[in-house]
């Protein structure tokens, strides 16, 4: 089995349009959540979100590209450019033939669905743009990345709701570890912040109207975000041979299914995924210094996740740090694990733990060190990134400092 390292990272989200900007915001505990701005927002009961601001597709992409790029594809391409440029890889010949792109998204081109349903149902039009289907399909972003950077190996899109990008990165990791691919572009993206996308979530009655406060006793729900996180996973010797800057190692992963409830999380399923990732990485629980929590800010997730951490780590649960950066960038649904992986990289590489902001009142059911409100300096050797999706599908990734 090969070792796998990360040699490039890119992002766009409510905290920034690059990895540097995002990590700076996480260090400062900036909140990227605010009033949503889009058509018909006044008809929503939930009007806050982690919306990407100042991202103008016009000028960045030409007219023909715009007719094919939904916002989730636009985000993906911007983040992929940053990641691939950082890696320094140029995909040609054998490298191009074997390297691919595996991405996660829950909704794909949600605003394309929204705009075109509006055109035919509300406005009574009987004709839509010829590229509606290739624009909204869930694999559109992965396909455009493959075309832009000549990635001709295994490429597809994974959709497991809020665990999509962790499942995607687990697939990419497996392919590099097994020797199937020398490098993979992976991560995920989401762009559901449009009328229909928020209205659907509103219906479930789990959204907060004011803030995302993970682990805080007065938390009252989740807040949606949008954006993308994209990484280059590369075989360790391949990266070393070309002198690449290694951000961290991907050490292992595990996936589990609760097989119990379509929306309520299960402690056992979450615990099996965390324990499985450690086992896969060959790392003892005591080595884990930081967990980037799923930490949605709902009553159900946060207490279940903390109980699962206590089960897996025993007394060490009180020593490790666990934070939810969703408090800052919102819940990016299918793209969330990818953006949150950045907080793990910051912990391992820079020794800075991103905080859980908005934390106001301790909850005895979440009695762990959640790094409240302020970032902390700490040397961390191993970090976990949790994602626990609706449908009970869990994916946890273990990362190690190099």
């Amino acid at each position: 089995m090969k070792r796998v390292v990360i040699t490039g990272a890119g992002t766009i989200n409510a905290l920034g349009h690059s990895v540097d900007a995002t990590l700076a915001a996480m260090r400062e505990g900036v909140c990227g959540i605010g009033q949503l701005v889009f058509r018909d927002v006044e008809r929503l009961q939930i009007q806050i979100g982690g919306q990407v601001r100042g991202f103008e597709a016009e000028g960045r992409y030409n007219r023909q590209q715009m007719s094919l790029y939904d916002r989730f594809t636009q985000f993906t391409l911007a983040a992929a450019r940053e990641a691939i440029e950082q890696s320094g890889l140029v995909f040609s010949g054998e490298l191009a033939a074997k390297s691919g792109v595996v991405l996660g998204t829950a909704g794909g081109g949600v605003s394309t669905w929204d705009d075109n349903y509006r055109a035919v149902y509300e406005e009574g039009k009987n004709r839509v743009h010829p590229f509606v289907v290739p624009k909204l399909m869930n694999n559109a972003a992965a396909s455009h990345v493959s075309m832009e950077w000549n990635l001709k190996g295994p490429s597809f899109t994974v959709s497991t709701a809020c665990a999509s990008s962790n499942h995607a990165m687990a697939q990419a990791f497996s392919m590099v570890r097994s020797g199937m691919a020398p490098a993979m572009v992976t991560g995920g993206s989401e762009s559901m912040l449009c009328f229909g996308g928020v209205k659907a979530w509103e219906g479930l009655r789990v959204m907060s109207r004011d803030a995302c406060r993970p682990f805080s006793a007065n938390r009252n729900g989740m807040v949606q975000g949008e954006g993308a996180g994209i990484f280059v996973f590369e075989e360790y010797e391949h990266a070393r041979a070309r002198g690449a800057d290694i951000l961290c190692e991907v050490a292992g992963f595990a996936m589990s299914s609760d097989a119990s409830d379509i929306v309520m999380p299960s402690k056992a399923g979450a615990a099996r995924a965390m324990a499985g990732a450690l086992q896969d990485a060959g790392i003892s629980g005591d080595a884990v210094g930081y967990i980037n929590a799923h930490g949605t800010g709902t009553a159900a997730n946060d207490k279940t996740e903390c109980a699962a951490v206590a089960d897996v780590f025993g007394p060490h649960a009180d020593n490790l740090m666990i934070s939810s950066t969703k408090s800052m960038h919102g819940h990016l649904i299918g793209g969330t694990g990818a953006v949150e992986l950045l907080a793990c990289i910051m912990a391992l590489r820079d020794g800075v733990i991103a905080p859980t902001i908005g934390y106001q009142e301790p909850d005895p059911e979440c009695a762990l060190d959640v790094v409240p409100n302020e970032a902390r300096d700490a040397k961390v050797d191993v970090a976990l990134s949790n994602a626990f999706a609706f449908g009970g599908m869990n994916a946890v990734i273990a990362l190690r400092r190099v």
Partner: protein
Amino acid sequence: MSITDQVIAIIAEQALLEPSDVTLDSTPESLGIDSLGLVESIFAIEEAFDINVPFNANDPTSSDFDISTVATIIAGIERLKAEQA
């Protein structure tokens, strides 16, 4: 149909029971309605009475719409209808 009869019909349907099995002092738990069922019941009530019920599944007791029994739900609907009038 009165508000009481409509609410009992909605809750009975959600609980897969006959309306005669639902009484004013029934609680969602006593009828076997879980959190998803509760959210669906609230939705059905909003549709039936054309009202917005302030309900957050993260903290069902936080709003002043009391969902502890069938009777309190009916009282909450009557108050919302009165405010609307």
